[in-house]
């Protein structure tokens, strides 16, 4: 450990965010609800994290997110064991660890919640990657349930009119799919109401993240990784709206009281890519020991990027474009524009990129992105090679040294 790096001083720790306990309660209830869906006569749909959940909520189907489950597996440090199991089943070690861990847990049911509730149907939106397409095909074969694919063409240089038309017609196909498999008709008034709640919740989530534009930041990206769960899983519900309002009030209060998450915040960093779920505590303390706060990240803000530009459209119409243009469904140069914006908005001194071997659409291209950020904005950037769930891909001593060296250059 470098000399000028302070030992972690628990006495100087910022007060915990109070809303955390409410969040845990909501998530527990949500999973109990999902696990007892059959008894309640409700259907369960598995859906990808970037998928349009609103129609499910409007149809009273319980959405379940295998990726959120993957994150829980990672945070509970069960990733390596489950990934190994998947490898025994024939899935290559080079595949996404969310998919591997989840596929293995479908069979083994030894994960943090004893296996996800089984799906009645599957909804896969490929706006995040091609992995989910293959993963959901696997699930469809395993559970023998219907699969709906919402195909959102990648946006290299433009979001074309034909893509818009294609996605919009699929949104109606999606609703027809739900109507068939639920045996009820969509109530479009309810749909618009869910849409309004979704927009409101997403706006509040953005406001929560925006509190970190304040210097010092009342929370860090590590907190955002935790509080993200609701905007992913319960987007479009009153619960999510109420929760984020509560969280926002608390963060604003912290700002008013001068409370910062990193006690002596001096350096402000931007995180890129998924969290390293099994090392969030370690990384958070590591950066805090350098007086560095991760004030923003491209990952949790991907969901606030889903805030549609309604412009007189119905929610369903707005959804087509919004869901297609999410952060990782766009080209590197478009990503750069977003990152450059964040660097300015959050007054960032440096960037930390997690080169995540699980996630090719997020990680390939990072080298070019880094070069653009350094050349055009002069912002120093560190790359950490790891994986979000599979601990075997994390070399602690090497990363420790690299972070120290990076922080030294920032300080000099």
């Amino acid at each position, binding site marked *: 450990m470098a000399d000028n790096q302070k030992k972690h001083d628990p006495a100087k720790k910022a007060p915990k965010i109070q809303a955390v306990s409410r969040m845990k309660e909501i998530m527990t209830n949500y999973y109990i609800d999902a696990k007892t869906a059959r008894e309640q006569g409700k259907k369960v749909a598995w859906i990808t994290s970037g998928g349009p959940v609103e129609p499910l909520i409007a149809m009273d189907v319980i959405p379940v997110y295998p990726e959120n489950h993957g994150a829980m597996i990672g945070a509970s440090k069960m990733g390596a064991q489950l990934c190994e199991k998947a490898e025994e*089943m*024939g*899935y*290559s070690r*080079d*595949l*996404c660890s969310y*998919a591997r861990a989840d596929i293995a847990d479908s069979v083994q049911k030894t994960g943090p919640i004893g296996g996800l509730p089984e799906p009645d149907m599957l909804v896969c939106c*490929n706006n995040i*990657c*091609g*992995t989910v*397409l*293959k*993963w959901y*095909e*696997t699930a*469809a*074969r395993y559970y023998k349930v219907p*699969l709906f*694919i919402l*195909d959102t*063409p*990648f946006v*290299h*240089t433009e979001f*074309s009119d*034909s*893509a818009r*038309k*294609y996605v919009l*017609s*699929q949104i109606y*196909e999606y609703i027809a799919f739900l109507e068939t498999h639920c045996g009820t008709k969509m109530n479009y008034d309810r749909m618009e109401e869910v849409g309004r709640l979704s927009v409101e919740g997403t706006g509040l989530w953005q406001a929560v993240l925006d509190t970190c534009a304040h210097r010092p930041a009342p929370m860090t990206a590590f907190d955002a990784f935790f509080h993200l769960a609701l905007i992913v899983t319960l987007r479009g519900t009153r619960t999510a709206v109420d929760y984020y309002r509560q969280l926002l009030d608390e963060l604003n209060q912290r700002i008013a009281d001068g409370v910062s998450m990193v006690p002596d915040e001096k350096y402000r960093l931007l995180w890129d890519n998924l969290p390293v779920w099994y090392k969030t505590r370690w990384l958070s303390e590591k950066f805090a020991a350098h007086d560095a706060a991760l004030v923003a990240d491209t990952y949790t803000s991907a969901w606030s990027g889903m805030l549609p530009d309604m412009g007189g459209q119905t929610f369903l119409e707005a959804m087509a474009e919004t869901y297609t243009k999410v952060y990782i469904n766009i*080209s*590197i*140069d478009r990503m750069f524009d977003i990152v450059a914006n964040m660097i300015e908005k959050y007054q960032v001194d440096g960037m930390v990129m997690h*080169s995540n*071997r699980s996630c*090719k*659409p997020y*990680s*390939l*291209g*990072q*080298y*070019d992105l880094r070069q653009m950020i350094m050349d055009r904005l002069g912002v120093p950037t560190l790359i950490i*090679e790891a994986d979000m769930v599979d601990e075997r891909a994390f070399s602690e001593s090497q990363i420790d040294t690299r972070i120290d060296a990076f922080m030294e250059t920032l300080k000099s």
Partner: protein
Amino acid sequence: MTSAERFRSIWRDPAGYGRSVKQETGRSILGFFCSYAPVELIYAAGVLPFRLFGTRGEISLADTHLQSYCCSLVRGGLEDALKGNLDFLDGAVFPHTCDSIQRLSDIWRLNAGFVHHFDAVLPVKLNTESARQYMIDVLSGFCRELETAFGKQIRDADINAAICEYNQIRKQLKALYAIRSQNPGLFEPSAVHWIMTAAMVMEPAAFLREITAFLDQIRSSAGAAAQTGRKRLMLAGGICTHPDVYDLLARAGADLVWDDLCTGARYFEGAIAEDTKDPVAAVADRYLSRSVCPAKHADITARGRHLVDAARQQGADGVIFLQLKFCDPHAFDYPYLKQFLDEAQIPSLLIEIEDQPPPGGQLLTRLETFVDML
């Protein structure tokens, strides 16, 4: 030079061939990586479509753009572009396939410095009417972009002519595969691989002449050769650019009789309707009906059934999966494909290929063990 020798020399140095075409004819050449690149439309624009296979040499320049966990096709392709090995290309087209190719397109557009760059963001889903309509829209849009880039109007008649020419090629390749399946002893182990490589880079008319001559000659000698009595194998996977594999298979005492590779049978499967009023739709329909690539979605068990059917039809005793390391779409399908084969009692073996194939001796032992077990 005999046809066989010509194929072999083009296989040995496809870029050398591309460069000679450029020098001799001055025509525009467009590179592509994937069997979803609509070669008929490119050709109808007066441009030669030229398949890229990735470098066989060392990787140095691509390392500053791509992490180590990226397949050798993407890395090798970028390396070739950055090194100037593809200086005869006017640009490249990237049909949407996998996550890695998707990012390669960005990196290529920002760094490779070609005059033209096309993204054909095809649908991933191939089994709905709206996907079909979108596919047609994308292909029509691509035609318009080609017209602007190369200054030649693409008429329906041009597309129909290209369709006929490529259908002829597909027909001949299919005949080639059928002859090999009946009489594998007639061919050198890598001969079909050389031909397939040539088919994907050569001027269509020139290739058609050579393949026709080659087939005539093979047919005339067909009477002489008899069944070899060796084990019959099939290859399955994406792309195979390692000819060693063919020689090793032969040395292990087996005949390669068929494949399910995108640089193999998937390239020539499915003819396109000729002389239709809407030739772009006809091109789209081939993609929608042909056996699906794992990066696309149609029926979720179609690939498994297709593989088992092909193995049965060709009387294959076993299947070898050639898996390019870090190729997600194929790696995701492997367990289920293997299960389908297991259920049909067709033995299979998985070989993972990194930038370089596994050491020859070790691979040979694995292949021999597998063949002995059949």
